[in-house]
């Protein structure tokens, strides 16, 4: 392809924690996805906005994995959908929607050919291998469908390629003549990966790729994904809620809460020194790998807050167990990410980080009753 020469990142705006090193495939700058939840006309009543994603920026360098973590409803899947082009960023019209850049070019300004190339280069693997494969198509047809649409290969060439892809993901090429129901969950997920690989993509969005699988099969699929990444220099965006999976797979991690990135940076740095209270709460709630490991759980008051009309200021304000100062400027204004360590960025307000706070009164040791 001719795209190798025209990589130019000068259009991409700066964002904290992001850089053009490592030839990013996708760069996301301040994107927002607001949904209008009631249909009233603004002059007649208040319009409610569900802010699924609100001002998110990150880079996806080639050959690296970015993890998006958070509870359900934190906007991680919506972010991925916008990158895949399944949703367009949108706001109420007064605030900028933000931009997504594909190899340095704004995706809104891509030519038709550029858009086609982007769609070839960005693929997805979905969570549920039972519903993401068409039960009426043979595996060969499923895998070669993207080839049929995007290339000029003949039927024979496509079948050969499908066989190669099946071998690459650890299945037997002759299994291409079978239907999806003849495979187990792990094998189906391999078929999904083969389909995503068909067009030699540069980035694959993995939406909970292993959470529907048996624990013993998870290791097989995760190892396969890591091997394919090393072999093809693939970039991944991994959406997961299992923190151990994120630590195993990801080079960089973004912890999201209510549509906003709360902690971002190098995965090892984040797990070694989790700074945001929310990250600490997630880690403290994760399952231990040995019965001798006992973690005191940090319990955040209340349940996940609805993303409809979130607070003007820090979104974490309504969930923190620490006292919030009424007239602090971050109760009215979004706090930015601040660099707290090497390649480690956190939303820092007096109530959102663990630094300098005694959290013992919010910790619940394992035999304590929950309030």
């Amino acid at each position, binding site marked *: 392809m001719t795209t190798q020469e025209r990589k130019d990142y000068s259009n991409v705006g700066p964002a904290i924690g992001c850089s053009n090193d490592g030839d990013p495939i996708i760069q996301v700058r301040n994107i927002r996805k607001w949904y209008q939840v009631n249909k009233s006309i603004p002059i007649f009543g208040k319009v409610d906005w569900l802010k699924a994603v609100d001002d998110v920026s990150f880079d996806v360098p080639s050959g690296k994995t970015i993890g998006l973590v958070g509870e359900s409803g934190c906007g991680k899947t919506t972010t991925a959908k916008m990158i895949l082009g399944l949703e367009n960023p949108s706001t109420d019209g007064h605030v900028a929607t933000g931009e997504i850049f594909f190899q340095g070019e704004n995706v809104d300004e891509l030519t038709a050919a550029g858009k086609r190339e982007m769609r070839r280069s960005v693929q997805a693997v979905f969570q549920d291998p039972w519903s993401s494969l068409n039960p009426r198509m043979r595996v060969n047809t499923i895998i070669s469908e993207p080839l049929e649409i995007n290339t000029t290969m003949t039927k024979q060439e496509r079948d050969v390629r499908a066989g190669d892809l099946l071998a690459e993901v650890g299945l037997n090429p002759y299994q291409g003549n079978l239907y999806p129901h003849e495979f187990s969950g792990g094998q189906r997920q391999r078929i999904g990966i083969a389909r995503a690989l068909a067009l030699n993509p540069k980035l694959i969005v993995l939406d909970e790729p292993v959470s529907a699988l048996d*624990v*013993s099969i*998870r*290791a097989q699929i995760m190892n396969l994904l*890591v091997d394919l990444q090393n072999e093809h220099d693939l970039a991944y965006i991994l959406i997961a809620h299992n923190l151990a999976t994120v630590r195993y797979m990801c080079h960089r991690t973004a912890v999201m809460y209510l549509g906003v990135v709360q902690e971002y940076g190098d995965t090892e740095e984040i797990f070694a020194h989790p700074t945001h209270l929310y990250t600490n709460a997630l880690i403290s*709630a994760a399952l231990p790998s040995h*019965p001798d490991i006992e973690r005191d759980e940090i319990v955040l008051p209340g349940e996940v807050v609805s993303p409809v009309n979130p607070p003007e200021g820090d979104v974490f304000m309504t969930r923190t167990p620490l006292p919030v100062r009424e007239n602090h400027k971050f109760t009215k204004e979004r706090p930015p990410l601040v660099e707290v360590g090497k390649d480690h960025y956190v939303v820092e307000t007096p109530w959102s980080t663990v630094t300098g706070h005694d959290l013992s009164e919010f910790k619940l040791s394992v035999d304590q*009753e929950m309030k």
Partner: protein
Amino acid sequence: MTNKADITSNEELIDRDGFGPSTIQNEVVLELKNLQTHFTTKWGTVKACDGVSYAVKKGETLGVVGESGSGKSVTALSIMRLIQSPPGKIAGGEVLLHGKNILELSEKEMTKVRGGEISMILQDPMQALNPVFDINNQVGEAIGIHQKLKGKRRWDKVVDALKKVRIPAPEMRARDYPHQLSGGMRQRVVGAIGISSNPSVIIADEPTTSLDVTIQAAYLRLLKQIQRETGAAIIFITHDFGIVAKMCDRVAVMYAGRIVEMADVREIFNNPLHEYTKALIGSVPKLEEKTGRLPQIEGQPPLLYNLPPGDSFAPRSTLKYDEKDALIRPDLVEVEPDHFVQLSRCSVADFDKYKDKVSY
């Protein structure tokens, strides 16, 4: 190593599961003896549960671990006698509840046991609840059947059960419908139905797989609290060793319809003997440290209608063994006090150490 006798005789109960002092009392509530459940299919007889024996004590949590298709859920359904017949059939064995074989009960007597003495918490709270009835109706149904209560007294019990599972504002929530509740709250309602008639055994079939980490942690804590209050025995069916590490006192690992290893939870983690147990524990990435490349179990779980003869794990084992060893059907042997393992040359690396315990 903690010995079974020490734990139960010791006045000062030992904190084994990390949820505070142990709640285990030395009284066996439910015991399975050589339970066999077979299904007749067009490919032949499937022995989904092939001679399973285990016992749970009052206040104890037993984890039953295995891949899908290993027979852990079929075993649970057999205890409840919920196996559809045909094609299924409980072909043999005993299920002793307080020493009485419930497989011999009439269907009418069984109705009292099911949901009364033994209750089940299912995996998917959205499917376990009926969307067209309110919470009061669904929790009240169980109370109406087992405690024969009506009207105001039934309502009070419903509110009580919801309070027990820590649902805020239970009087208001009881009038809600399932879709008005969040996933965690729905799972609590399913829990409330399960505990409403003070069961002595709770069978939890992967109750937290569809929940977020924080909600999962709260739910597990809740189950432990209920256990402490009521002294119920819990059989926790899961495929996640993380849940086992957090919740269980004892673990039974199942493979292809049989128990391959059973021991105290610490013993299983510190000294796993069967290759399958080792692989299951090893193949989970750790949160506490950076994990190198994960060891993986090669191959797929076997098809139950076409099991390898003898040791069914042999084809997936990484140990070196003779073909003829794989043909021997291994027995579950107590190799250390309270540590049982299916002793086979193909899948136990330390076989020679315990060779004298078996005749093959």
